[in-house]
């Protein structure tokens, strides 16, 4: 399986400002002093070896959208936040006239930041395409219809030319969709949210965003340990610091990097991707949180070694 991150930001799109871009250029130019940059190859080598990710790139500002590419003809994607505009454009770049496209969406929940890309999801406008929106909420269709209606948006849902179907899923049930085994799990979030575990060819990825973890101990009785168990990749809501998540922002429905590491250790997860980044965090802040999380993983000295990354728009992870 190949996991593609089209949107990794939480709550609200957070595009980089012109000032932030200029700051990156300034920093890179300063670091370039004394380096031979006389060819594209040397420039690339300088960028790779001398600049941190936050200096040469960006985590991006699109909201939740993660593609699970299992190699089948049908697409599989989690959530249609603002990142789904780019995802839809990528689908259209491979568009073949006369051949329909099938997109299987797995909806964590219908909050705005997880559906806001749909009005700009071009495949939904193409006759012959099929969009199946899977989820455990009864309100998914209502949420999508409200979003695509006046006065909020000029194109009414019923004007979309593709065949759009809403498929109700149940927890504790294994489905096989587009050649991938999928199970859902209820999560603690306002109005509920659902995590999804995808398995194919002995590899597994868990998409678990917008999920607050309230427990007194992490042991085998905590259901998420089993849901995450031995996952090759855990995409985890690490929006807040632990202190915020259990004080000022308690019951806001999100979790922290600390809880992510502890749960991943307990469940023997191989790789943890920090996800649903706070829109108030700039690139340097997310990189700092990543470095601190790696350090905490080292300090915790528990379980197997865990690889930790901070997901970014455009990232691909092959399992």
């Amino acid at each position, binding site marked *: 399986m190949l996991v593609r991150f089209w949107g990794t930001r939480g709550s609200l799109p957070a595009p980089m400002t012109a000032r932030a871009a200029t700051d990156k250029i300034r920093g890179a130019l300063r670091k370039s002093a004394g380096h031979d940059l006389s060819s594209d190859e040397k420039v690339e080598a300088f960028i790779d070896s001398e600049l941190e990710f936050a200096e040469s790139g960006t985590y991006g500002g699109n909201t939740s959208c993660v593609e699970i590419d299992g190699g089948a003809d049908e697409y599989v994607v989690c959530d249609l936040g603002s990142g789904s505009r780019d995802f839809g454009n990528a689908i259209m770049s491979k568009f073949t006239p006369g051949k329909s496209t099938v997109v299987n969406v797995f909806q964590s929940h219908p909050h705005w930041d997880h559906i806001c890309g749909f009005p700009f999801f071009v495949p939904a406008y193409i006759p012959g395409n099929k969009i199946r929106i899977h989820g455990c909420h009864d309100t998914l269709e209502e949420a999508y219809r409200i979003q695509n209606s006046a006065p909020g948006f000029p194109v009414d849902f019923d004007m979309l030319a593709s065949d759009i179907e809403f498929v109700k899923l149940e927890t504790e049930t294994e489905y096989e969709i587009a050649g991938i085994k999928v199970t859902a799990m209820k999560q603690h979030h306002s109005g509920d949210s659902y995590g999804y575990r995808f398995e194919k060819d002995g590899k597994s990825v868990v998409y678990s965003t917008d999920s607050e973890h309230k427990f007194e*101990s992490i042991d085998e009785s905590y259901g998420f340990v089993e849901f995450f168990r031995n996952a090759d990749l855990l995409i985890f809501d690490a929006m807040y610091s632990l202190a915020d998540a259990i004080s000022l922002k308690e019951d806001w429905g999100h979790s*922290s990097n600390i809880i992510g590491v502890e749960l991943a250790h307990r469940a023997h997860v191989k790789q943890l991707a920090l996800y649903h980044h706070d829109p108030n965090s700039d690139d340097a802040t997310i990189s700092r949180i990543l470095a601190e999380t790696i350090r905490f993983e080292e300090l915790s000295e528990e379980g197997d070694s865990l690889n930790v990354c901070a997901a970014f728009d455009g990232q691909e992870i092959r399992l």
Partner: protein
Amino acid sequence: MDIDEVKYDSAIILHPNGRLDQDTAATFQDRLLQAIGSGGKGVIVDFSKVPYVSSVGLRAIMIAAKQGKADGISLAVADLTPTVSEIFEISRFNFVVDIHEKLRDAVEAVSDDALKAYEAA
């Protein structure tokens, strides 16, 4: 987990000994809430013999801090080991809990009478 408790006038100091994790957090939280409920002006946790604190340990501190705030009793931590100090920073608990480098400083922050009793001991 062994937790010694010493009272200095209006300040209570708890001295936990060992890792503060899911095996010990419940005991620690009970003792902490008990100390807060026993009156006085402030409770201080001496972290000099705590080599590690996990999220459930930090949660116990947060619960106690909230209870203390409701009861008008301060909660502070002091003399953190290097690892625990790092974890407080990574978790941002350094922004929500009073941290003192030395126990004496924490006692002084509770009251002058507590400091006199601490220094006389």
